[in-house]
């Protein structure tokens, strides 16, 4: 039996209320959209989803990372390889990026299922993340939200089996972004709705059900991509589905999270599923991928620590639309009168991948003191080259001291500087993120998160930051 071994969604902490967008441009708007922090991109969000997904999944090692997004930070340079390094996976991991449409997530899922079924890979972590931009004052800006999700595909300890896969391709220029554009565009709304997603998804779901000899009545939950709530209802109606069986896609809370949308919704469905429940998963993007799933007897044995309810209720509102524009660098601000960030050396980064990407330090074999970054001479006892690897990313930590630096280089000033002390030893001094300066107190619990630290010289440099632990 092949299927989902564990799963997790990840939503950034920040929300922009649609009323705040309407303040700028007029019109109305309900609900909120999830917005990646100024230091989050699809790699950072995928890492967050992956870490949650792998928590407690003490199963066989992951030998594949398939990353899917229409908004990978690079056009040429693999995101999956970065993620594998952050997760400290073996160099023999099969890494691949899937891109080009909102269907890239399920393209990756299908490839993962095929690989595991064929025995070529044991466990593949499928990651989907998007951070799409709509033009200011456009429908996309209001609709799009940022988010990520992770599905671990394997055949050992399956929580939900994938029983069938059906795929259709369809050439249409409905929703698109060329290699020359930052913003997603769509053709006339009615054409897009009626001849794009509104035609293909019902057609593909109907065929998939027929082929797997299932009636709609046999299915407990339909998880289907739609650009918004209304279109989801339209498609459900055309399929004559019981509205109670249509999984909510969190348009009101997170927005259309692009490639990640169906996986986030699937995570919500899996959290609620009972053993034996049949589910249909249908994506859309120049065609459709449809999967039928069955919740396995073990469905209740593992749930992500941070389920959808956590992400619905744990949030910070971006106070102004202007701040959103700044974070997404849609408007350019006068640079601060301080020295600009220096360009890192890819050579030095490469040498330092282990400590930089997966937050590995060392622990002295003589005196047992954990130290970050890697040392050759022990800070505590002076012994030389006698260390074992030590990971800091998952250790509980508290804030030793901090300041709020208005001269720091940040898109979210002031820079909150943190000295973080780890349980078991070790201290790291770094930036804080996802914080309200007013809430910061000495001694508060901290968790480490993987973020973009700077973009200088045409490439992204990531590192870890501290953020208040919110549970």
């Amino acid at each position, binding site marked *: 039996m092949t299927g989902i071994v564990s799963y997790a969604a990840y939503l950034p902490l920040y929300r922009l209320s649609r009323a705040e967008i309407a303040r700028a441009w007029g019109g109305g708007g309900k609900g909120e959209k999830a917005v990646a922090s100024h230091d989050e991109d699809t790699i950072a969000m995928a890492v967050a989803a992956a870490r949650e997904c792998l928590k407690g999944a003490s199963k066989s090692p992951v030998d594949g990372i398939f990353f899917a997004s229409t908004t990978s930070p690079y056009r040429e340079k693999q995101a999956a390889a970065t993620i594998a390094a952050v997760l400290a996976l073996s160099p023999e991991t099969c890494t691949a990026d899937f891109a080009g449409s909102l269907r890239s997530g399920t393209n990756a899922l299908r490839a993962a299922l095929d690989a595991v079924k064929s025995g070529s890979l044991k466990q593949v972590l499928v990651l989907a993340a998007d951070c799409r931009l709509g033009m200011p004052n456009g429908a996309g800006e209001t609709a799009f939200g940022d988010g990520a999700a992770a599905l671990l595909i394997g055949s050992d300890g399956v929580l939900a089996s994938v029983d069938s896969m059906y795929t259709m391709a369809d050439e249409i220029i409905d929703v698109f972004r060329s290699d020359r554009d930052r913003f997603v565009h769509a053709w006339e709304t009615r054409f897009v709705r009626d001849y794009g997603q509104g035609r293909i998804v019902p057609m593909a779901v109907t065929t998939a059900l027929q082929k797997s000899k299932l009636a709609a009545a046999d299915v407990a939950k339909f998880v289907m991509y739609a650009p918004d709530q209304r279109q989801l209802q339209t498609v459900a109606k055309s399929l004559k589905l019981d509205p109670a069986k249509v999984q909510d896609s969190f348009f009101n809370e997170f927005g259309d999270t692009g490639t990640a949308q169906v996986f986030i919704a699937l995570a919500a469905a899996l959290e609620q599923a009972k053993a034996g429940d049949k589910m249909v998963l249908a994506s859309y993007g120049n065609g459709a991928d449809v999967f039928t799933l069955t919740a396995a007897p073990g469905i209740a044995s593992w749930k992500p620590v941070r389920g959808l309810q956590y992400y619905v209720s744990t949030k910070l509102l971006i106070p102004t639309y202007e701040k959103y524009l700044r974070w997404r660098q849609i408007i350019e601000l006068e640079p601060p009168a301080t020295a600009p960030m220096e360009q890192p050396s890819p050579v030095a980064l490469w040498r330092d991948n282990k400590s930089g990407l997966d937050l590995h330090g060392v622990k002295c074999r003589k005196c047992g003191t954990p*130290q*970050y970054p890697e040392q050759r001479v022990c800070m505590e006892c002076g012994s030389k080259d006698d260390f074992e690897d030590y990971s800091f990313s998952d250790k509980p930590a508290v804030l030793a001291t901090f*300041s709020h630096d208005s001269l720091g*280089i940040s898109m979210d000033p002031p820079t909150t500087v943190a000295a973080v002390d*780890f349980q078991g030893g070790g*201290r790291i001094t770094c930036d804080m993120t996802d914080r309200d300066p007013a809430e910061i107190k000495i001694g508060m619990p901290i968790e480490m998160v993987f973020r973009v630290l700077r973009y200088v010289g045409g490439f992204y440099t990531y590192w870890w930051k501290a953020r208040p632990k919110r549970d």
Partner: protein
Amino acid sequence: MDGIKDKVAIIGMGCSKFGENWEKSADDMIIDAAYEAYADAGIESKDIGAAWLGTYVTEQTGQMLSRALKLDYIPVTRVENACATGSDALRNACYAVASGACDIALAVGVEKLKDSGYTGLPDFELLRRQSNTYRTRTYSPPGHFAMMATKYFDRYGLSPEEGKKVIGQIAVKNHHNGALSPKAHFQSETTLEKVLAAPMVAWPLGLFDCCGVSDGAAAAIVTRAELAKKFRPDPIYIKALQIAVGPYEGYMSPKFDWSHVEETVRAGERAYAEAGVKNPRQEISMAEVHDCFTITELVIMEDLKFSERGKAPDDVRSGFFNLDGGLPVNTDGGLKCFGHPIGASGLRMMYEVYKQLQQKADKRQIKNPRLGLTHNLGGTPATCSVSVIIAGNELG
């Protein structure tokens, strides 16, 4: 090990005007400081046997010193020790004459910061440690020292408001002293109200908690102690020269409490031992310390054992460090008001100690000084280079 005590004397010193010296190049300021020192010592450029240039970011090579002063093909070396650079230039010159390698040595410190276009400090490796790889710091020097303020206040039960009042008084004192210093960058009095109302730079530090970013140069001429009286009747004798450089422990170990600076403690203890000082609070007549931020001065008072741990705020409140107090500190306005051209600051501190010990400090003159101390810190509270130099106006 008998140390440096009474082996070397300073026989001449000079200091340029500190500030935003738009009209002066680094060479101009070097010339201003060096020629004042020559005249003070009664020597000429050709009498100098070796020279050290302290500069942190202005130029890579010491050749600029020979170029500016047209030195006579003598050995010239550039030294650097972060913001303690000027003190290290002096230390090298002192060791040169003490060794007998030459009779007269020159130490010059200079920094030209205001050509950068930045209000704050230019970019340098110390602040963005390992900036070519991961782990770069996106925060400024005030951001680092503000972390010490946060922790100090928390540790000793001061609310941020109470804490800011204490360090604010240090700013008021240094402004008062700076107003009496004709070469200082800032020469105006201020009030605690103004200090507390100033814009935030790095919470909890406001604008008046931060020192000036300045251009400037300072110079010293040293000789062996037994030769000193040939040049002047009132040479100033070196009693201790110490530098402690931290191994980065504060950033890596939870043992560092962020409310003291270990390098200051170590350099101070060694300097007191070298100079034979048993009770610094009693024996040190005045001190010029590295008040890059007001919180730094507060903590230095404890690290140098002028105040007991946690008691510096009481001494600040009682005026113990004021010009007319028991142990005047930063009588020339300190980094806060005299300004902080990085490579020059250590020598500027000694310039004030020298003038005070010679009773030539004009309106700032304290009564009957015997021993003066400079404390020069380069880096951040978590890891830095600290120089502590003690000088006296008598042998023995």
